[in-house]
């Protein structure tokens, strides 16, 4: 009985290292799953001479809109003539 219990304990301990963490985005108090980082839209936009995007600080949708505009410059069928 003791041997069986020991084997179960060893197996449980050994397999505990095989777990896989879920790859979900968790952002809490300036940290992503414990790693300190902040979100792109939480910054102020750069001054105009640096030709960055323009968005409202802290507003995710305005940052996404700005980056989307920039992405569309990769489409030469739309870009030419603008």
């Amino acid at each position, binding site marked *: 009985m003791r041997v069986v219990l020991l084997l179960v304990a060893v197996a449980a301990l050994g397999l505990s290292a095989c777990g896989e963490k879920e790859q979900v985005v968790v952002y809490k108090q300036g940290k992503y799953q414990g790693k300190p980082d902040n979100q792109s839209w939480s910054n102020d936009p750069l001054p105009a001479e640096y030709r960055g*995007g323009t968005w409202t600080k802290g507003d995710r949708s305005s940052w996404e809109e700005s980056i989307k505009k920039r992405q569309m410059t990769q489409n030469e069928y739309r870009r030419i003539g603008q």
Partner: protein
Amino acid sequence: MARMKFLCDAERCIECNGCVTACKNENEVPWGVNRRRVVTINDGVVGAEKSISVACMHCSDAPCMAVCPVDCFYRTDDGVVLHDKDLCIGCGYCFYACPFGAPQFPQAGAFGLRGKMDKCTFCAGGPEPDRSEAEFRKYGRNRLAEGKLPACAEMCSTKALLGGDGDVIADIYRERVLRRGRGADLWGWSSAYGVRPGAQTPTPQPAPTTGKS
């Protein structure tokens, strides 16, 4: 919600290495570390030889994240896979797990001593204050926090390399394929994002016949 992805159009890549140079310059990547590189597929096969630009694809279900023994990876709200160099022990597991060979290890000293892993950050920096000196030294420029796209994609002269929200770049690619009527195969897209080739990039339809020969 933006999900940042890379897409390389093998029909357009001319192997100029502009993306590699842009990345090296923008992030001041040291010698021996190549966050991005251009590889040739079907090398030597006449008519089938293509070039593609490869780096970390920021996979939807990233194998590097799954195998890291110290759990140094994380995914941002934009879908960018980043890692914390303060936690990385340079074990190299992520290198073996990555289907794109993206993780790079600087040779930090004699006897093959390996440094901490370095990889493409989608120009999104890392776990340091955004646009700070510390972030630049460890991870490179944070262009996303400047409202810009990765330097490699923005510098690509033929626009073979597209970077940005998956939906937007897939739309650009779809339009391109329909106009040219060929070359719908996407290298690495299904491995990275779990989508069958053709599910997001339609097969071009033959042009309607006019009845004239």
